[in-house]
């Protein structure tokens, strides 16, 4: 309970831009009006600016404070050695038996669950081997009871209690300097994330070859000037969902472009997965790039398997002339329009009554 509250406190802000905190106004209480006005006049919209290096096509944030800021304020970036939040340092401390015992990280809990599942599978394999033997002798299925038990074992929530074991490999020697663990982990932003922080929020400084880089320069590095450039398509979609309040993260694990979280990963599961397709003005061009149903069926199976909603975002692609005639990036982006379709398997049995 208190953990939940504190999580809410840590992630109070959903962008690295914070509104001015003003007190509530009670209409019949003039003092509240005054308080409001004072807070308003004194207040400043806070922008928490961080710094990233743009090297070899990667956006890396190495300053610990910046990493924390980006994660706390809207879940930007991903630890390069972690599933999402940069937790490698803590994890490794624990693994190497350094530092204090802290809460388990997601990665550790997952590892334990997987171990348990493996044990179960081993038992099942044994059982099946036994069964096969008997089958050769012509005896059928004497193990229904045991199998049921196994099923229970599988269905039961796997209890996550751990005793600490230290795992020190030769390869870990290089991590230690004077017996202290070096933090090798940096935070990586994907291109649309970095560009959003720069272009839409102006909350990040991006260095390229140790020199600060402007928004336009960055844009030119990330995109070809072609109107159906993948970066542009991905960016406008990213911007669209971010500006509606979604926490947008990569969907690569499920073979999609993005996953949409309400608030952020620790609060909700991602309910929606996004794939992006172009919609040209020329129908013939659209027919040429049309996807086949089998491809969609495969994606929808994976997404349906994790009970997520699949959104196909068709991005209207302007003509090259329209695009080139725009002076500002803002105008250019406004030429792209988002069209959303939901794609879901329809099961006849479940729609009859």
């Amino acid at each position, binding site marked *: 309970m208190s953990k*939940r509250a504190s999580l809410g406190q840590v992630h109070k802000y959903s962008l690295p831009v914070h509104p001015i905190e003003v007190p509530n106004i009670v209409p019949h209480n003039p003092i509240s009006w005054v308080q409001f006005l004072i807070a308003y006049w004194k207040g*400043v919209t806070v922008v928490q600016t961080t710094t990233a290096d743009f090297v070899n096509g990667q956006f890396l944030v190495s300053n610990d404070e910046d990493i924390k800021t980006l994660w706390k304020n809207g879940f930007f970036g991903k630890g390069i050695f972690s599933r999402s939040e940069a937790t490698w340092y803590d994890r490794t401390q624990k693994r190497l038996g350094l530092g204090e015992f802290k809460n388990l990280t997601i990665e550790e809990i997952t590892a334990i669950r997987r171990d348990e599942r493996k044990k179960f599978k081993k038992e099942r394999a044994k059982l099946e081997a036994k069964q096969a033997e008997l089958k050769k002798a012509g005896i059928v299925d004497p193990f229904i009871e045991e199998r049921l038990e196994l099923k229970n074992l599988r269905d039961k929530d796997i209890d996550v209690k751990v005793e600490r074991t230290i795992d020190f490999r030769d390869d870990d020697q290089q991590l230690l300097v004077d017996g202290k663990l070096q933090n090798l982990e940096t935070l990586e932003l994907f291109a649309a994330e970095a560009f959003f922080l720069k272009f839409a929020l102006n909350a990040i400084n991006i260095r390229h070859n140790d020199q600060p880089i402007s928004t336009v320069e960055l844009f030119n590095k990330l995109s070809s000037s072609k109107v159906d450039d993948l970066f542009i398509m991905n960016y406008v979609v990213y911007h669209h969902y971010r*500006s509606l309040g979604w926490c947008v993260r990569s969907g690569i694990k499920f073979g999609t472009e993005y996953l949409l979280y309400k608030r952020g990963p620790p609060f909700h*599961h991602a309910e929606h997965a996004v794939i992006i397709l172009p919609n040209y003005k020329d129908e013939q061009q659209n027919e040429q790039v049309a996807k086949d149903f089998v491809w969609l069926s495969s994606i929808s199976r994976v997404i349906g398997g994790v009970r997520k909603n699949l959104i196909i975002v068709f991005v209207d692609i302007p003509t090259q002339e329209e695009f080139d005639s725009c002076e500002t990036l803002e105008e250019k982006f406004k030429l792209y329009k988002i069209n959303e379709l939901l794609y879901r398997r329809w099961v006849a049995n479940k729609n009859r009554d």
Partner: protein
Amino acid sequence: MEDEEALLTSTANPDTQIEFEDEIQDWRNLTKIKDTSLPKRGEKDYEPDGTNLQNSVLEESRNSMFDALAGDRSHVVKQHVKAIWISSQKRGLITKPKGSFLQTCGVIDSENKCWLRPEEFCYLAERGSIEPWFEDKDLAMSIEACYAYCFDNDDEIDEYHVYSYLKRHGFIVMKNEEQRIIPKLQTISPMKRVYSQLLKWINYFTLPNLITNLFGHKPYPFFQNLNFTSKKFTSYSQIYNSIKLIPFRSHSTPSTQPQPQSSSTQSKLIPTFNIWKPSPNFSKKSPPLPNFQILVQNVNKYKLPTLKQLHDLINSTNYQNKHHIDSDQSKRLKNGYGFVLIATVDYGIINIVKLSEADFGNENVWYVPGPKPQNKKNNGKNNKNQNNNNNNNNKDKNKDKKGKK
């Protein structure tokens, strides 16, 4: 649980995600299906292991299948219905119509003769309810002959498979012969519109807003040069609204950017069938709006239609509750608005998908902290409620009310 965990556990047991019909079933279970309850998924083996037991079980399964396939296709003399295939009309003709299937199949003309569409004719013959006859020979047709004569092209055969698939599921299915586009009705009822306008005004005059408005704050920023610090944002809704930039297709103003008429000969797609849920009071003469409309597409021949085609297709649909809008935000996001079904067919294997128009652009989901909690324990709960309220229908209500002083 983490997403990945969800994947692992949900797929550890493939049964949970694969529908029963998807898998090839053990025909020894067919007898169970006749007792109305679905049989349990038969235990299958990993691979052939060369044991006699396995071979004999396989043989048993095959024989059950062959026996079932050998079952008679027939009806009794008392219920005899003869239907003649009239090639020139592409219709089956029943001169003395009778039978319960008439409730949902065929059209009765002024002479009280019943005309069956090809898929109806073939389906009724296949399930043994009518005896199909040749027109110019005094001879009954076989199922083989029905297939050969009823369908003029490969698409019609795929459509037939979808028709009978849905019929077997108990749906009432009719060809969607309405070749014109049904004009789209107003999506928002007038009352609703007045109401939402009203809310907008009410919100405009809520005090914090009034003040920020008076101080001339314009929510639209200049991108690139944007400097939030020079703006007085007092809530996240202002910040988010200020970064809204990308246009989106909204369900309430769905007109797409004008697309030049393409020279492509691609024909307009129209739903193939209308589908009704089973109903004992169904009147085929004056049917209500269907529950669903479905387009049939062969996956080896057709690709996903273009966006324009899909929009046109969805616009052309007309079915019950088309304009129903969920009051709950998360349901709206998941279910979308207008939809069409597409039956994708791969050699008679049918996979139906629902394509619906979504409109995330009209829904804000940013987190709004609740009022200051009475005590810590209630914190999470309050937030939730607050969120739900906001989700209802008015985004402008999403003003942050910071509970802290």
